[in-house]
């Protein structure tokens, strides 16, 4: 029983991190129908920004978190302005290739400055609670709690603010929105900033939970979060959340039941099966053909 409860907590922590990253993919896709493959690298920059900040002035977690989000959000908007806006009307393949290229550039710049894996400083005292044979660390609670808080905040922004309304309008018809006098370009920039800020926050939380950081840390987890976003229905915010928790759970369940050698094989086969039955993702809706 404690064994299963412990695995549930493990799945929850993994799923929360995936969710924060998957949200960034989904936001950008919803607005531009473009997959920002550099997102995993913005996630990595979140961790490195915090390391840089801590090495200059030691600041507590509650200040680092918003600063990281602002900095990475700004970088995300910059990336959109410099790399994606000029080719917005080009074929979709060009946009994907540009995103992949930007990701590689970010990785290699970081690699040039820091070829060695670095140790992340301890920002939060980590106390461990034993409860009926289950162990929960305060760090796990912070990771899960902050992720949930950020996701609720995003949901609130999307549903109840005029900015959120503009994002939803953009995702349903980009041309029409600009005709109605909504500044499309700045909304797109802000959306990128929002997605990147979430990615940066995820990077920071991840680095606190697993305190060895390197320039390649965003690649694998970036792919996994992308898979989560697709499973949930890419472009759909709640779908991204659902997909991320499903992915975290399938990974942990497959390790629990079968030898861990088969983890990725089982987890990703299951996800492919979901796609066979729900090709637009669990919460995704097929696009309406306009004649």
């Amino acid at each position: 029983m404690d064994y299963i409860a412990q695995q549930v907590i493990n799945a929850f922590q993994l799923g929360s991190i995936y969710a924060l990253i998957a949200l960034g993919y989904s936001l950008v896709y919803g607005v531009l129908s473009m997959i920002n493959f550099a997102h995993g690298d913005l996630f990595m920059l979140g961790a490195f920004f915090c390391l840089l900040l801590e090495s200059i002035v030691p600041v507590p977690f509650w200040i680092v978190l918003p600063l990281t989000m602002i900095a990475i959000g700004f970088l995300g908007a910059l990336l959109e302005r410099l790399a994606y806006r000029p080719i917005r009307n080009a074929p979709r393949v060009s946009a994907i290739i540009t995103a992949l290229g930007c990701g590689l550039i970010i990785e290699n710049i970081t690699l040039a400055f820091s070829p060695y894996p670095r140790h992340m400083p301890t920002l939060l005292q980590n106390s461990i609670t034993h409860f009926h044979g289950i162990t929960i660390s305060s760090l796990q609670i912070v990771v899960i709690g902050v992720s949930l808080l950020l996701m609720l905040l995003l949901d609130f922004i999307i549903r109840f603010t005029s900015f959120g309304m503009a994002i939803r309008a953009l995702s349903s018809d980009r041309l029409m929105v600009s005709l109605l006098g909504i500044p499309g370009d700045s909304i797109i920039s802000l959306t990128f900033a929002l997605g990147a800020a979430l990615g940066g926050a995820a990077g920071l939380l991840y680095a606190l939970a697993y305190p060895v950081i390197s320039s390649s840390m965003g690649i694998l987890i970036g792919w996994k979060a992308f898979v989560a976003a697709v499973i949930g229905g890419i472009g759909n915010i709640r779908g991204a959340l659902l997909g991320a928790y499903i992915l975290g759970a399938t990974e942990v369940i497959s390790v629990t039941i079968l030898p861990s050698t088969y983890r990725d094989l089982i987890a990703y086969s299951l996800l492919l099966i979901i796609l066979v039955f729900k090709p637009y993702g669990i919460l995704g809706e097929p696009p309406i053909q306009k004649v």
Partner: protein
Amino acid sequence: MNRQSKDTFCLVFFFSLLVVSCQPTKPVVKIGLNAEITGEAPAVGASCVNAAKLYVSEVNQSGGIDIAGKKMPIELVIGDNGSKADESVAISQRLIAQNEVVAMVGPNVSSCAVPSSEIAESMGCLMISPWSTNLRTTRNSDGSFKKNVFRACFTELVETPLLAQFALNNLHLSKAAILYDISSESPNSAAHEFQKSFLQAGGKVVATETYTTGDRDFSAQLTKIKAENPDVFFIPAYYNDVPLIAQQARRLGITAQLIGYNSWSTSDLLKLDTGHCLSNAYFSNHFSLESGLPKEKKFAAQYQAAYGQPPDDIAALTYDTMGLVTEAIAKADSLNRKAIINAMAHIEFFSGVTGDFSFIKENHDPLKDIIILTIKDGKFIYVKTVKP
């Protein structure tokens, strides 16, 4: 200028070019170094390059290698393989075909050394890996030795059985769990060899779990391991994964004795383990600063003077590899690649900074002692030498 003088000018110009290009360049012995300078294991590459440069500067100060009565200095050609299999292959090809090295030192990481060894085989150049312990580096799939490939370290066949015996007989632990990176060459075979010999020696292996390169969360596997309640936990993983595994294992309440193998032995492991989760862990290694060999002491002092830090095992093994290559070249008494390989195949005994090597019966893997170290107060402490 009339036509004739134009022709004369051209001729003179042409011949002068020929003379310039035929000018004998200073004869040097080119040795290639295929190292992991960037990528997953940059600490490995840094130590390797440092030690090789130290060796070359020592030999060149004494004039160089004596070949056919003439002293020739060594020129080191360094290539960065990025710890990637494909790049290490490209670097091997470049060093051998383009830079025309007479022998290649490296790569160190097995996932690079195994594919590079195929290039050394097909292009007929001597390759000695300082640090790759994977069997397939020097052996073909049928178990026979590759003609041109040697190594300066022990293999997992020598190391992990001795480690398993140490855990059973010296630490008196008999219920083992193993967690390893399934997509990485060396940890994979270390895990299998350990499991085999631990079972043979009378121990029990209660859990064998895996992960893939790039994973940072091991809690699902560790929760499973904890449920089996092992008393010794073998972690064959590279140094950037080990502190995370140890930290998460301790957090989940795994109290088993942690043991590891030679991939742990870099000071970066200690830098990343700030929570001291690896305190009192044991691991086997190629080299220790406290093993008390006179050659080792002299090397450690020189290395410390040159780079301001003590050498690690990769530095020591690279230094010995350079020694082996130099001895083979001196024995061959020529810069012919075939003659050098032939001379290397006839070296049976070599005394280096990591101890005595014996290449018994045309074996390309040396028989050597393993050194057991422990981690205390953020330092590696020498425990004992286990003889094969």
